[in-house]
């Protein structure tokens, strides 16, 4: 076995060196979430009365349990932080683990870099071990950063360690999930899709288990285990054992699978396709449809499932209308708590749709960097038409994603007797569209004008997410809140609609798209 791991440390060092900047960004970004939440608690809920109200309102409230996990011990900053952030932080760390494992195993194997190294003195399992090892190392460092940050903010060390361990364990389990996924799929993309799909299912299982009477469902989800440690209250350390055992089992399966597959191949054989193209594949729009349809269907399905679960518990929110004072502080102004809840939910869906939009528009850029666009543009196809064929999917697709999410939420909410209507929820998702398109437009402009910086679309949406999700809580200054497009979206249902910001955002989106299009037509193709 030691032979099979020869070269492990060299590979880990190489991976950490290669990724140092992005790994540091992940660590700092994830640690930021609990630390800032903890630090802001005292100013948000200064009096004992505030804290009692908070607890009475949110503990046992299924809607919030669905979004974030069941609340307990909200009278203390620690309990509040654990409730509000543990699942989100673990989910982000899981994404880091997935991307890191896939990057250093399947993607490298695909590009042939592994072959170069495998010919050297490197053991059979060393690549997989190095991928998992690198992810585990970052999970550990993230945990450490969280402990240091929380303790420095005045948290109890035991609770801080329990919280950080839960988050790190969540990340670790998904390193194991990705380790299996890279054996199954032949390509990095397939492995990422499989792992992220597993993460989405874990989130939905947890959400359903926490918000319904089927509490056992939460135990099926690795993200559920992170909340079951109850950091800062009971500190149930033994739940870490569940996560660790699961990781060991997953990695064990992956090792068995490594031995069973050939180099460069996956268990899911790269399937064959038709020898001739269907009539629909006759131009750049036909090609875009083929490139985008799978991803678009995945996102629509995900948001439809989330909307169905989230909408079906909307009714239970009505029981806490009495505490709407608190609700206003939490979610902004509005008339009833069901509406506030749905407004928040649709807002999150809007941001998720923008993530899809960025992904879709960046597809154009990766066609360029991978060199495929040269073959296309050597035909009588204009650049404008080619770029437009991707923009159409980014724009229409992202709108479709938020509409499907809203529709599913609305139908589920209305069917379970919540005090809202499907059309009201649909209106809420429609007003998200200008903000989504603004972000898509910004990414398109980057691709057209400064293509090498086009990945900046991701930090933009990450900042938008932080501002929307934590901005009002952290009482960020208005100028920061206003920097997020989603701050200007009307609060529907329940709020009033001001057309000016919607028109302004649409106009900016159109202008940005125009800039991107002109840039694309004028610049050189850069691979």
């Amino acid at each position, binding site marked *: 076995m030691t032979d099979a791991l020869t070269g492990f440390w060299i590979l880990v060092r190489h991976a950490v060196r290669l990724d140092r900047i992005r790994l540091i960004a992940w660590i700092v970004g994830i640690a930021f979430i609990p630390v800032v939440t903890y630090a802001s608690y005292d100013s948000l809920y200064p009096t004992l009365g505030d804290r009692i109200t908070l607890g009475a309102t949110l503990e046992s409230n299924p809607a919030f349990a669905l979004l974030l996990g069941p609340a307990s011990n909200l009278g203390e900053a620690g309990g509040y932080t654990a409730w509000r952030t543990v699942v989100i932080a673990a989910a982000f760390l899981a994404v880091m683990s997935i991307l890191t494992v896939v990057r250093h195993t399947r993607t490298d194997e695909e590009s042939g870099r592994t072959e170069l190294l495998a010919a050297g003195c490197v053991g059979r399992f060393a690549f997989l071990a190095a991928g998992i090892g690198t992810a585990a190392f970052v999970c550990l460092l993230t945990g450490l950063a969280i402990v240091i940050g929380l303790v420095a903010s005045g948290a109890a060390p035991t609770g801080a360690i329990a919280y950080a361990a839960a988050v790190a364990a969540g990340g670790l389990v998904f390193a194991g999930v990705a380790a299996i996924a890279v054996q199954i799929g032949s390509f990095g993309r397939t492995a990422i899709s499989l792992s992220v799909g597993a993460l989405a299912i874990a989130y939905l299982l947890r959400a359903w288990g926490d918000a319904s009477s089927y509490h056992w469902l939460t135990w099926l989800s690795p993200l559920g285990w992170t909340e079951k440690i109850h950091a800062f209250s009971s500190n149930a350390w033994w739940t870490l054992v569940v996560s660790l055992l699961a990781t060991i089992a997953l990695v064990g399966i992956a090792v068995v699978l490594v031995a069973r597959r050939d180099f460069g191949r996956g268990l899911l054989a790269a399937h064959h396709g*038709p020898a*001739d193209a269907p009539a629909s594949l006759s131009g750049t729009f036909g090609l875009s449809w083929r490139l985008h349809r799978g991803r678009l269907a995945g996102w629509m399905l995900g948001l439809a499932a989330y909307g169905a679960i989230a909408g079906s518990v909307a009714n239970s929110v009505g029981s806490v209308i009495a505490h709407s004072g608190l609700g206003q502080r939490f979610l902004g102004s509005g008339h009833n708590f069901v509406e506030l809840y749905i407004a928040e939910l649709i807002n999150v869906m809007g941001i998720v749709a923008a993530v899809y939009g960025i992904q879709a528009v960046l597809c154009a850029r990766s066609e360029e960097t991978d060199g495929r666009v040269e073959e296309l543009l050597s035909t009588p196809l204009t650049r404008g038409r080619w770029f437009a064929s991707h923009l159409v999917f980014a724009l229409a697709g992202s709108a479709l994603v938020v509409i499907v999410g809203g529709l599913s939420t609305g139908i589920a909410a209305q069917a379970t007797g919540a005090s809202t209507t499907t059309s009201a929820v649909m209106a809420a998702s429609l007003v998200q569209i200008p903000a989504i398109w603004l972000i898509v437009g910004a990414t398109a402009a980057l691709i057209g004008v400064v293509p090498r910086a086009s990945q900046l679309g991701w930090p933009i949406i990450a900042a938008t997410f932080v501002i929307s999700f934590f901005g009002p809580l952290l009482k960020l200054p208005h100028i920061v809140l206003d920097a997020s497009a989603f701050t200007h979206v009307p609060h529907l249902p329940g709020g009033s609609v001001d057309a000016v910001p919607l028109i302004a955002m649409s106009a900016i989106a159109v202008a940005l798209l125009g800039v991107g299009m002109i840039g694309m037509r004028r610049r050189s193709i850069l691979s």
Partner: protein
Amino acid sequence: MHGFVGPNGSGKSTTIRILLGLLHADRGEVMLLDGDPWRDTVALHRRLAYVPGEVSLWPQLSGGEAIDLLGRLRGGFDPARKAELLERFELDPTKTGRSYSKGNRQKVALVAALACDVELLILDEPTSGLDPLMESVFQQCIEEIKAQGRTVLLSSHILSEVEALCDRVSILRLGQVVQRGTLEELRRVTRTHIVATLERVPEDLATWPGVHEVLVHDNRVRCDVETPALNDMMGRLVACGLISLVTQPPTLEELFLREYAEEPA
């Protein structure tokens, strides 16, 4: 049929990308089929097909689908011609993009380009991933296209391929064309390699006009002779009592080596 020769990094692919209107030339004038590749892109692209040096295919599409897509974008092609080329290149069109090897990806792009009835084919190192058998299939295909009177621009660092196929050649170094002309014209500036056995070796051999790299071993002489000095040289050798003679025609290889041996200006 024009050959475009130069080592890696000499600017072959960059030139081709400029010709295709993918890159904007910093300075200088570019003309392609009487048009400006940057302005008249679409009109020009109707008349040409291109095979890039590094072919990248869509993971979601099979090879056959990629060929059909590129063919349809170029304004249609003959399915019978596609079937014929697939057979000649022994290419399985049902595999998906990423499961093809480098050579097979290149075949996909070649079939897509050769199936189209266009005036101009631009091929950037089209055989770099092909095995010798496939290379000869490729050469046959190009011969047929030449016979139809169509134009081919072939970029390569494999000189034998260029010598076998091209009528005119441009040699690139560090982004500059250093030699240009028909293969005949280029051979005129090249040197013939001679090995001769003589009854008596002339002492002043190295000073004869147009003679280079002289090596004498007993009565055997090796040297390189410039093409214009060849006739004169033969007369002098006969006068020295020629016993045996071996001559090697100039190859592009030598011209190439000489161009690159010189320090860049």
